[in-house]
């Protein structure tokens, strides 16, 4: 069974523990500049939103790569960069509609989320469960459940807490 990173921005506090966990897992240091996940702060609206690769089934980055350096890990569903094969041409960074594949000056290669081989560090580090790692077929489960709890109740409006 495949799992997906599931992001609930409403729970994010902007602490960047996910970025530190990601860079520690992948680079052995605390360095948000090398994180595969990024938290965006929409200050004027008071919203913080973590964002990373969603592991497209038909991945633009994978198809665009001229040297087949991006491959599918069938155990996790992640599209992984083979660093030994990547030539740093950056075509994948153009192909990705979401901007989640990025070039690193320091290495001359690209980096993207690889789900940490099936145990994503960001989800483990998130103190508010804004990032979880759940059944890929049921990312809507909790939201469905919250609404389901209302179906036989008295009429109500708004989003369940």
């Amino acid at each position, binding site marked *: 069974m495949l799992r997906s990173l599931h992001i609930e921005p409403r729970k994010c506090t902007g602490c960047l*523990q996910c970025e530190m966990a990601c860079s520690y897992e992948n680079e052995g240091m605390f360095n948000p500049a090398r994180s595969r996940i990024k938290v965006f702060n929409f200050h004027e609206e008071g919203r913080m939103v973590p964002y990373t690769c969603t592991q497209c089934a038909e991945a633009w980055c994978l198809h665009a790569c001229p040297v087949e350096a991006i491959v599918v890990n069938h155990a996790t569903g992640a599209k992984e960069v083979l660093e030994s094969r990547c030539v740093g041409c950056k075509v994948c960074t153009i192909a990705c509609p979401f901007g989640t594949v990025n070039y690193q000056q320091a290495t001359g290669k690209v980096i993207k989320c690889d789900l940490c081989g099936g145990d994503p560090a960001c989800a483990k580090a998130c103190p508010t469960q804004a990032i979880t790692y759940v059944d890929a077929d049921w990312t809507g489960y909790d939201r469905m459940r919250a609404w389901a709890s209302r179906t036989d109740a008295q009429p109500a409006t708004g989003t369940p807490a």
Partner: protein
Amino acid sequence: MGWHNKVLRVNLTAGTCTPEPLNAEWAQQYLGQRGLATKYLVEEVDPKVDPLAPENKIIFATGPLTGTAASTGGRYSVITKGALTGAIACSNSGGYFGAELKMAGWDMIICEGRAANPVYLFIENDSAELLPADGLWGKSVWEADEIIHRTHQDPLIRISAIGRAGETGVMYAAVVNDLHRAAGRSGVGTVMGSKNLKAIAVRGTSGVTVKDPARFMQATAAAKQVLADNAVTGQGLPKYGTQVLMNVINEVGALPTRNHRDVQFEGASHISGEAMHEPRPSDGKPNLVTNQACFGCTIACGRISRIDQKHYTVVNRPEYWSASGGLEYEAAWALGAATGVDDLEALTYANFLCNEQGFDPISFGATVGAAMELYDMGVITDAETGGLQLRFGSAEALTTLAELTGHGEGFGREIGLGSKRLCEKYGHPDLSMSVKGQEFPAYDSRGIQGMGLTYATSNRGACHLRSYTVSSEILGIPEKTDPLASEGKAGLVKAFQDATAAVDSSGLCLFTTFAWTLGDIAPQLDAACEGEWSIDRLLETGERIWNMERQFNLAAGFTAKDDTLPKRLLTEPAKTGPAKGKVNELPKMLPEYYQLRGWDTEGVPTGETLSRLGL
């Protein structure tokens, strides 16, 4: 590891930026941030220097845990001789700036001299340069932030800046980073302004490493669990912020009200953390939009608020309709209870202005409270205020003065002096509710006795963040003591002062200590840094720092006579509440405190004490 062992020395007079190695021996004795930067300051600056002279220096310092995955590991401090006090100043801030400075590869920045023309410091990893700030001078913190981001076309730059308050000489100007986090107290922003240094902009991509990564990850994970499981750090602070205290402190009769005339505020519930959650009648939305964390913080006590668009302060002014940093307890108290104003939206607006123009809401609100008392007595009249009626409880007076003070205009220039200079000027020095020139925070020491000793002996003037005995006296952390008793408080204050000095030197936030003891902090430091960092060593380091700061103040001209409280707190009993009839019993506590500190009866550390601490 932990430290980068790299200091950036910026000579503003010469216009040079020079890297130098960190003094590793001092790092072992003073840890980092508050302790280590103060060591640099006392070695390099004459304690008698005019705080606003080029000979004073201003240091921006991170701790060894800044920029790591330790919870709250994003703090930095600004250390200088304070403009407001003339004493040692160390103001601590969160947000993201401190971690970014560390990510760029620097432990601290020492700024010295004075630039001939306004400049800002731009740091990109190893490279640092002073750039002309012609287009920034005269701008607010918020405008400067936007202009710098636009100029460098880099949204990831983190910025620490002064606003117009720091330029126009408000004596309690703050250094504001990330738009609404502040090194707020003692006039550190005034010193920055005196040096013609408008801002420091940093982009860091080189990362932070620690000594023993595996042990560090274990230690930080265990410590994060302690924060999550604790009722204050796991529930109270995320939901209500520090504003969780407003109703609590009011009920125990220790909420200073109307310049400390009263100890309970009838409007407290209207300006409380609970009130910030209540939907407003006008638009059906609460004042609070969300909570927000600083870098690395798993508590997330920060408040993000939005002012009611129909409120008189912002009607037809959409520039103030966006969400921004909301009220924390100290600001809500100073802008509210100290002035008798219970209009939550007016306080939020005044707080926005404090962030926008860079001035300390505590000293500002307390100074407005003092001015209102002088107005009430007829000492300050409409002639001085330009017709503005400074009545206790007047939201309009408060918000107008916030505008005037932020811009250095009209009667705002008088308010910008701080309460000590203001009350002296009008012939009533006793009405300044301050110690060593710095205004009290939100705890009345008649109702919380230990705080009287805390304030009287604080090295940076009246302050709750030097020994927060409220934890013990009100909240029962680590154990409950009687807030109305002065017995045993000397030892309590000393213990809190020493531990706090260590925490302030680590890169961590003091608020963790609602849940953490040094026993939770030591393993994190020890895994990150060279040297054996135990609880005992941290306490000794804290005591060393405290005595070093004391020595600086004594050399600056302070004496035991300055370890006191305003007459009101020592002679006018609390009128209501549990502390009714009480004054602060400082005279009972102070001699014992000196003795416990190893100081003589004049409050001077003895030779034995100094040599024991290696000073």
